[in-house]
C-alpha cells in the first residue's frame, strides 16, 4: 500500500481545512457547506485508511519531535489493527453525521454562529481520530484532552441556557479527573519501563509484577470508565449529551464513548496482558461493573421522558454490555481459553461497532424531531409517523437494532455476548462461574428493559395522536438529514444481515486467526462449540439463511391468505378509536411516557425510590375545602448523585474551606506564618542526621 503513509496527513489537512474554511464565509448556508462537506470527505478518507490497514494488516508509523532532549517526548503516531478498527467506527459514524449536519445546522442559522459549530465539529472528529493513532503518552493525552475541550465547547454551544453551562462544567471536570487517573496509570508504566512510548509499554508487558499490573489496570479502568460512562462515573453523561446539539450528541454518544473503550482495550490487552489465573479478578471486576452499569443505565432510561436523556442513559447501558464482553475475554484469557477469549472479544467489539451506528442513527432521528417540533419532551410529541414518515422509519430501524431483535445488528452482537456468557462453564473456578452467572441475570434483565424502553421511545413520540400543536404542525426533515440517516440505517441492516463483514474486520484488527472462533466464509454461520459432561454440540447462527427462511415463510403465508380467500369481498373501513362509549376523547386521555413507565417504576421501587409531592392551592386560606388546583409531581431521585457525589463534594469543599481561612487579613498572622516556617524548617534540617 504505497499511498497509505500519505493518507493520515491528508485526513488531518482536510479536517483543518474544514475547520478554517467556514471562517471565510458570511452567509450561514455557505458556512455549513464549507465546514461539513470537508468533514464528510475526510471521514470517508478515514474509513478508507482504516479499511486498508485492516485488510493489508500493515501498520503506519509517523512522528515529529517536540522536545529533542527527551526522546519519547514527541508527537508520534502508529496505526495498528486495534487503532484502525476504532478509526473505522469513527469514520463511519462521522460521515453520516457530517452529511446530517448539513441540514441540521439550518436550525441554528438565526440564533447561533454556524461557523463555530462547523469548525468545532471538525476539530472534535479530528482529535478523536488522532487519539486512536497516537503512540506515546504525551500525544495521547494531548489529543485526548483536545477531544474533551472541543466537545465541551460544543456542549456549551447554546450557552444562554443556565443548565447547559452547569452540565458543561460537570462534564469537563469529570473528564479531567478521568485524565488525571489515566496519566497516573501511564506514568506508573513509565516508571517501570523508563520511556513514554507505547512500544516500550507493549514490549515490557510480560515482565510487569502483578501488583503493578493490578494498579495500572484499576487506574486505567477508572480513568477510561469516566470517559466511557461506566456507572459510578457516569453522572456527566445524561447531562452533557442532551445539552449538546443533536448532531454533536450523536457523535459524542456513538463514537466518543468508544474512544474511552479504545483506551481501555489498549491498556488491558496491550500493556497489562492478563496471562495467569491470578489476573482473573480484573476480568471479574469488568464483568461486574459492566453488568451493573448496563442495568442502571437501562433502568434510568426506561423512566426518562426526555428523548435525548433517555438515549444518553441508554449509552451507559450499551457501554456496560461492551465492558461485560471485554471482562469475559480477560477472564478467559487469564485461564488460557484462547478461542473463548476471542469469542468474547469479538462480541464486545462487534457490539461497540453496532452501538456506534444505531446510537448515531437514533440521536439523528431525535435531532430531526427536536428540530421540527422544538421540544425533546416525549409527552408533547405523538403522531409524528404521519408527519415525518422517513424519520419514523429510521427511528424504528434504530429501535429494533438497539433492542437486540433478530433481523438487525443488535441481535447478532447480543447473541455472541450471550454465547460467551453461556460458555463460561469452561472456566475452572467455581466462584467465577457463579458470579458470571449472577452477572448474566443483570444482562438479561437489561435486554428485557431495553426493548420496553424503545417501545416507549418510538411509540410515544411517533405513534398515536399528536399531544401538542407543535407535533401537529411538524413537517419532514430536510433531504440532507434524511441522507445521513439513510447511510446509518443501511449500515444497521448490512451489519445485521451480513455479520461476516464485521467479524472479519474484528478478527484482522485483533489478530486472532480465522479458524479460532468460527468459520468466516461469506454467508457462513457463526458457530460456537460446546463440550459439557460428555455431550458435544455446535450452536450456530447464520443470519443470511434466517432471512431466506423468513422470506419463504412470508411467501407461504401470503399464498395461504390468497388461496383461502374470504368468502365475500371484505372492505377495510376507517373509524375513530373505540372510546368505551364516553364520546370523543381528546389527546389528554392518551398514555404518556411517564404513565407508560409507571409499572416499571413501581416494580423497581427500591432502586428508584419514587418521591411524589402534592401541591394544593386554595381560593382562600381560611377554608381549605374548595381547592383551586392540585398538582402532583413525582420524580425518581438520582441515586448516585445523592449518596455518592454530593457527600464527597461536601467533604472536599469543607476541607478546602478550612484551608482557605489561612488568609485572615491580619499582618500579625502573616508574620507568624513566616516565623513558624523558619523555625520548623530549621528544626527539620538540624535534627535530620
Amino acid at each position, binding site marked *: 500500500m504505497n499511498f497509505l503513509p500519505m493518507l493520515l496527513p491528508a485526513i488531518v489537512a482536510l479536517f483543518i481545512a474544514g475547520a478554517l474554511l467556514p471562517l471565510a464565509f458570511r452567509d450561514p448556508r455557505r458556512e455549513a457547506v464549507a465546514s461539513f462537506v470537508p468533514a464528510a470527505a475526510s471521514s470517508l478518507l478515514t474509513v478508507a485508511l482504516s479499511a486498508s490497514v485492516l485488510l493489508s494488516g500493515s501498520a503506519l508509523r509517523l512522528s515529529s519531535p*517536540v522536545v529533542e532532549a527527551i526522546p519519547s517526548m514527541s508527537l508520534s503516531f502508529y496505526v495498528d489493527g486495534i487503532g484502525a478498527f476504532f478509526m473505522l467506527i469513527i469514520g463511519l459514524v462521522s460521515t453520516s453525521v457530517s452529511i446530517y449536519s448539513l441540514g441540521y445546522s439550518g436550525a441554528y442559522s438565526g440564533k447561533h454562529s454556524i461557523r463555530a459549530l462547523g469548525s468545532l465539529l471538525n476539530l472534535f472528529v479530528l482529535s478523536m481520530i488522532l487519539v486512536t493513532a497516537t503512540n506515546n503518552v504525551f500525544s495521547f493525552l494531548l489529543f485526548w484532552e483536545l477531544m474533551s*475541550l472541543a466537545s465541551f465547547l460544543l456542549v456549551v454551544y447554546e*450557552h444562554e441556557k443556565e443548565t447547559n453551562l452547569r452540565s458543561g462544567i460537570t462534564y469537563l*471536570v469529570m473528564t479531567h479527573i478521568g485524565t488525571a487517573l489515566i496519566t497516573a496509570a501511564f506514568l506508573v508504566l513509565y516508571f517501570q519501563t523508563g520511556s513514554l512510548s507505547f512500544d516500550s509499554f507493549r514490549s515490557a508487558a510480560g515482565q510487569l509484577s502483578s501488583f503493578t499490573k493490578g494498579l495500572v489496570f484499576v487506574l486505567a479502568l477508572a480513568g477510561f470508565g469516566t470517559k466511557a460512562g461506566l456507572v459510578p462515573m457516569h453522572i456527566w453523561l445524561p447531562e452533557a449529551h442532551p445539552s449538546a446539539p443533536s448532531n454533536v450528541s450523536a457523535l459524542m454518544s456513538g463514537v466518543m464513548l468508544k474512544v474511552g473503550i479504545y483506551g481501555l482495550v489498549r491498556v488491558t490487552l496491550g500493556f497489562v496482558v492478563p496471562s495467569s489465573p491470578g489476573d482473573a479478578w480484573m476480568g471479574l471486576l469488568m464483568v461486574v461493573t459492566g453488568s451493573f452499569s448496563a442495568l442502571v443505565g437501562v433502568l434510568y432510561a426506561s423512566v426518562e421522558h426526555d428523548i435525548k436523556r433517555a438515549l444518553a442513559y441508554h449509552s451507559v447501558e450499551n457501554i456496560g454490555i461492551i465492558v461485560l464482553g471485554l471482562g469475559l475475554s480477560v477472564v478467559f484469557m487469564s485461564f488460557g481459553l484462547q478461542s473463548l477469549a476471542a469469542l468474547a472479544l469479538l462480541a464486545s467489539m462487534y457490539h461497540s461497532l453496532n452501538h456506534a451506528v444505531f446510537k448515531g442513527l437514533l440521536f439523528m432521528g431525535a435531532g430531526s424531531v427536536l428540530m421540527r417540533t422544538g421540544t425533546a419532551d416525549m409527552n408533547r410529541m405523538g403522531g409524528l409517523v404521519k408527519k415525518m414518515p422517513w424519520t419514523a422509519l429510521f427511528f424504528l430501524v434504530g429501535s429494533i437494532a438497539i433492542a437486540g431483535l433478530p433481523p438487525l445488528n443488535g441481535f447478532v452482537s447480543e447473541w455472541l455476548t450471550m454465547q460467551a456468557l453461556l460458555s463460561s462453564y469452561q472456566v475452572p473456578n467455581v466462584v467465577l462461574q457463579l458470579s458470571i452467572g449472577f452477572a448474566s441475570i443483570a444482562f438479561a434483565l437489561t435486554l428485557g428493559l431495553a426493548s420496553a424502553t424503545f417501545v416507549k421511545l418510538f411509540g410515544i413520540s411517533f405513534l398515536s395522536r399528536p399531544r401538542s400543536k407543535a407535533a401537529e404542525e411538524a413537517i419532514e426533515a430536510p433531504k440532507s438529514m434524511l441522507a445521513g440517516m439513510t447511510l446509518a440505517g443501511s449500515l444497521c441492516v448490512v451489519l445485521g444481515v451480513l455479520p461476516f463483514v464485521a467479524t472479519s474486520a474484528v478478527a484482522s484488527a485483533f489478530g486472532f486467526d480465522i479458524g479460532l472462533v468460527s468459520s468466516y466464509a461469506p454467508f457462513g454461520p457463526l458457530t460456537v462449540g460446546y463440550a459439557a459432561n460428555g455431550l458435544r454440540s455446535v450452536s450456530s447462527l447464520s443470519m443470511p439463511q434466517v432471512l431466506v427462511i423468513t422470506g419463504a415463510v412470508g411467501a407461504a403465508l401470503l399464498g395461504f391468505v390468497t388461496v383461502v380467500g374470504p368468502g365475500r369481498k371484505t372492505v377495510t373501513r376507517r373509524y375513530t378509536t373505540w372510546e368505551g362509549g364516553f364520546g370523543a376523547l381528546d389527546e389528554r386521555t392518551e398514555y404518556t411516557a411517564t404513565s407508560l413507565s409507571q409499572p416499571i417504576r413501581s416494580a423497581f421501587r427500591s432502586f428508584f425510590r419514587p418521591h411524589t409531592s402534592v401541591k394544593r392551592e386554595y381560593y382562600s386560606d381560611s377554608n381549605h375545602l374548595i381547592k383551586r388546583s392540585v398538582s402532583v409531581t413525582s420524580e425518581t431521585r438520582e441515586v448516585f448523585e445523592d449518596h455518592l457525589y454530593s457527600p464527597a463534594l461536601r467533604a472536599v469543599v469543607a476541607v*478546602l474551606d478550612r484551608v482557605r481561612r489561612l488568609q485572615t487579613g491580619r*499582618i500579625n498572622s502573616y508574620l507568624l506564618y513566616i516565623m513558624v516556617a*523558619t523555625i520548623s524548617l530549621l528544626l527539620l534540617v*538540624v535534627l535530620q542526621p
Partner: protein
Amino acid sequence: MALWSTILADLTAGASPSAWSELILTVLLTPAVALAAVTLTHRKRPAEIITVASVVLVVLQTFGLVAGVISKGQFSALGGFLYLDAFGALVLIPIAGVGFVAALYSVSYMGRQYERGVVDDRHIVRYYQGFNCFVLTMLLVPLANNMGLMWVAIEATTLVSVFMIMLYTNQGPMEAAWKYLIVATVGLSLALLGIVLFTYSNTAVSPSAVASGSGMDWTSMSADAKLLDPGIVKIAFVFVLVGLGTKAGLAPMHTWLPDAHGEAPTPVSALLSGVLLNCAIYGVLRFYIVASGTLGAALPSELMIILGLLSMGIAAASIFFQKDMKRMLAYSSVEHMGIVSLAVGFGGFIGLFAAMLHIVNHAVAKPLMFFASGTVSQRYETKVMTEIKGVVKTMPVTGAFLLVGGLAIAGMPPFNIFLSEFLVLTSGFGTGQFLAGSLMILLLVVVFAGFLRHLVPMVFGSPKGPGRAVTADSRPGEDGAGKLAILPMAILVALVIVLGFYIPQPLQTLIRDAVQVFGQGAPP
C-alpha cells in the same frame, strides 16, 4: 532547525568577548536612560513613547545576549561584578518579553483610565517612572554575580513595586502596599542572613576570595561548593529559602501576594506575577545549586518538595472559593511557583528541564490572563466574577482570549502549561516520588475545577453586568478593548498555543545548557 543555527552562528561570529560585556551594560543603561527621560519630559504622551522605545531596545539586546550565551556559554562584565550564564539568560527572556508586552498594554490601559478620570496627569508620569525603574531593577537581578548586589536589586524591586501599588490612593491598595512592604522586608532580611552566612563559609574556605573581594560572588561560591562547611550551609539555605521564598510567593510565606497583585493596576500585577516571582525563585535556585553541591541533592530537594506541595495545596483551596478575579490569578501564581519548586525538588534532567520550561510558560500565560481580566473588569467596572456574565457576547475577542488563557493556566492540554506540568509529573513518577506525584495530580484537578467554576459562567451565558453599556445587542465584530490592548494579548495567545507542541530550537538548547548549570542530571 538548521535555519536557527545559521542565524546564531553569523550573529555571534563578529562580536568579540568585550562586545558582550558592553551589551550587558547597555541593557541595564537603557531603562535608566528612559527613567531619566520620562522624569524630564514629565508629560503623558512622550512618557509612553519613551517607555515603549526603551522596552523594545531591551528586547533586542536581550536576544543578542541570549544568542551570545548559546554560542559562548557565559561571560561577565565590570570585572566579574556582573555575570550572565544560560540560567540567567533563561530568566532574562521573560523579563524583556513581558516588559515589552506590559508596556504596550499599559499605554492602552492607563490611557483608558486617564480618559475616565480615574488617574490624572501626575499619576501617569509617576506610573511610567515606576515602570522603567521596575524594569531596571528586575534586569539587574539575573545579571548580578555578586549575591549582595542581587539582594539589593531584589530589595529595590520590592520598594519600587510598593511605590507603584500605591498609585491609586484609596484604601485597598494602601493596605496591600503596607502588608507587602512589611512581609517582604522581613523576608528579605532573613534572606540577607542566609547570604551573609554563605559568604562567611565561602571566605572561611578560600582566603584568596577574601583578598579579591569576590567572597560574595556566586561563581566562586559554586566553584568551591564541595569545600563549604555543611553545618553553616544547612542553616544558610533554610534562611535563603524562607527569605527569598517570601518574595517568590511560596506558601506559607505567600500571604502578601494576593493582596499586592489584586490591588495593583493590571499591567503592574502582570509584571509582578509574570516576572518578579521568577526573579525571586531564580535567587532561591542559585543558592539551591550551591547547597546541593555541598549537602548533596537529597535535603534541599526535600525542602523544595515540601514547600511546593504546600503552595499548591493552599492555592488550590483559595482559588476554589475566590470571588475577585485578580486575587484568583494571584493565587494561581502561587500554585505555579509551587509547581516550579516541586519540579526542582523532583530533580533529574527531566525535572529541571520542566522547571525551566515552566518558568517561561508561566511568564507567557499569566500576563495574558491579567490583561484579559483587566480589560474585562475595566468594561464591566467590577472585579467580582459572579457579577460578570457573557463576556464572549459583549467582547468576543477578549472573551476568546480570556477562555484560552484560563484553560491554559488551568493546565488544559493543547496549551503550553500542560506540556511543562506533564514533564514535571513524568519526572515525579520517574524518580519514584509516587506520593508527591499523585498529590500533585490531585491538586491540579482541584485547581482545574476551581478555575472552571469561575471562568465558564463569566465567559459564556447571557451578558448582564453593572458596567457601562454591557448590553447583549453590541455588534459581535466590534470589541470593547482598543487595538493596543488586543495586540499584546494576541502575541501571548499565539505563544501559548504554539509552545503547546513546538518548542523552538534555540530555546531548547538554552534550557539544556541551563540544566547543565545545575550540574545534576544528564540528558536520558
